[in-house]
């Protein structure tokens, strides 16, 4: 589904990613774990075409999308949820949901499906997006890309800063998304959370892939990883 080859990313003179190779198969849920500053966000942004100072190739379903604009990548089925959730204050909840164009009518969630799954969004549909709580905003951000029919989600720390019940809820959503066959690349610091949803894990360290583990290995080495991540 997604193939990242030899990705280098730079911020001025500083290199944030060093020849990163990441592959995600269709229907797979893969996490990226790594300490703060390891380059996880930079990797997702590069896949989305938001980071211009990059080398390497990004392939989506066999098509080289390296040269494409962000909106063209989105229209090919990439759904990005940025780390601060990216909810618009000047748009209502419903406008936040309907802003992105539907890219695949076949798999797109309809507005009523979204509202059935997230009743709180229906209740607050006319309110400005940022008047929602943090957890509600996260659900809105995920629902927003589901409504486009994105075939692959790029989620940047969806559980960060949320109460345990909300994290549970996000986990349920991810499992449902997975059951529908949607592919997910998930940045996650929460190792326990990652182990319950993902099939495979990349450990990123200082801008390079340090390990590529299946979920069994990952779970077995959980305490070691926790220590490594310093959590």
């Amino acid at each position: 589904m997604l193939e990242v080859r030899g990705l280098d990313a730079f911020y001025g003179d500083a290199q944030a990613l060093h020849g990163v190779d990441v592959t995600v198969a269709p229907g797979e849920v893969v996490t990226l774990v790594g300490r703060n500053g390891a380059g996880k966000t930079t990797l997702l942004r590069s896949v989305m075409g938001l980071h211009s100072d990059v080398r390497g190739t990004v392939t989506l379903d066999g098509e080289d999308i390296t040269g494409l604009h962000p909106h063209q990548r989105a229209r090919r089925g990439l759904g990005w949820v940025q780390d601060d959730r990216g909810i618009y204050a000047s748009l209502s909840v419903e406008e936040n949901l309907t802003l992105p164009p539907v890219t695949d009518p076949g798999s797109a969630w309809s507005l009523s499906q979204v509202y059935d799954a997230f009743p709180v969004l229906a209740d607050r549909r006319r309110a400005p997006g940022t008047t929602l709580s943090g957890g509600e905003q996260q659900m809105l951000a995920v629902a927003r890309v589901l409504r486009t029919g994105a075939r692959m989600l790029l989620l940047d720390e969806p559980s960060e800063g949320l109460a345990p019940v909300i994290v549970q809820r996000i986990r349920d959503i991810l499992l449902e998304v997975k059951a529908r066959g949607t592919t997910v690349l998930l940045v996650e610091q929460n190792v326990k959370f990652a182990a319950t949803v993902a099939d495979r894990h990349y450990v990123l360290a200082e801008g390079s892939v340090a390990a590529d583990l299946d979920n069994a290995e990952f779970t077995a080495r959980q305490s070691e990883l926790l220590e490594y991540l310093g959590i």
Partner: protein
Amino acid sequence: MNEILQYTLQGLAAGSFYALAALGLAIIFGVLGVVNFAHGACYMLGAVVAAVLQDLLGLNFWLALLVVPVVMFVFGVVIERLLVSRLIALDPLYNFLLTFGLTLLLVDLVKRQYGVSGLPYTRPDLLTGQITLGALRLPTYQVFVLAFSLLVCAAVWLLMTRTRIGMIVRASTEKSELTRALGVDVNRWVTPVFGFGIALAGLAGVLAAPFRAITADMGSSFIIILFAVVVIGGLGSIVGAVVAGFIVGLVEAFGQAYAPALSQIAIFVLMALVILVRPAGLFGREENA
């Protein structure tokens, strides 16, 4: 009492020009990230085009209100395609310099062609009189300018809040990068938005044509006040542009009435106070500041 009402109307009428033009400036800044320094020159051009079309084709004021914004829209589209778009990927400062240069160019071209003394404009009869309300006698022109610009502001407001393009303008004003990453082709809207903003400046110019001197320099002081307006309202804020436009008009009118020497200074003192208390402007969002 009567006097105060009269100054209020005068201020709101003066503010109407600022509100319309600042609206265009705010929308352009929101979507393109470009501070259009040539906005004052486009206001001037709106008035000049109205005067020239009246002279050449006998186009009356009412038709000019329709025709000139269309002409200015086309002008804006050409400028955006020809010049602004080439610099858009660079530091916004380059477009500031470009539009500043454009101002000098436009002003001098108009001076060269039509001189410095100003172009004549025939006032429509309907606007020359006064409206009498009991003891109140209000200049028809001021009432018209205020009502017309309120109408235009309301129409733009509906466009911004009720249509998909308005939603895209709001979204890309707030989070340009994310809006693109969500699949919205913002670039498609850049050219028409620029043209639309220029058309609003031109419309303000047409409104000014019957009662203000139409000279090449009429936009020079206008643009300075306009910057104070957008800073007070909050750069990129559409509501802020309109509200601040009227506030500044009022400050100007009352200043001229009671302390003529201080009237311009008062606007900039107000601007400084607003920056001190709310750096992002009255209606600006902190994160965009």
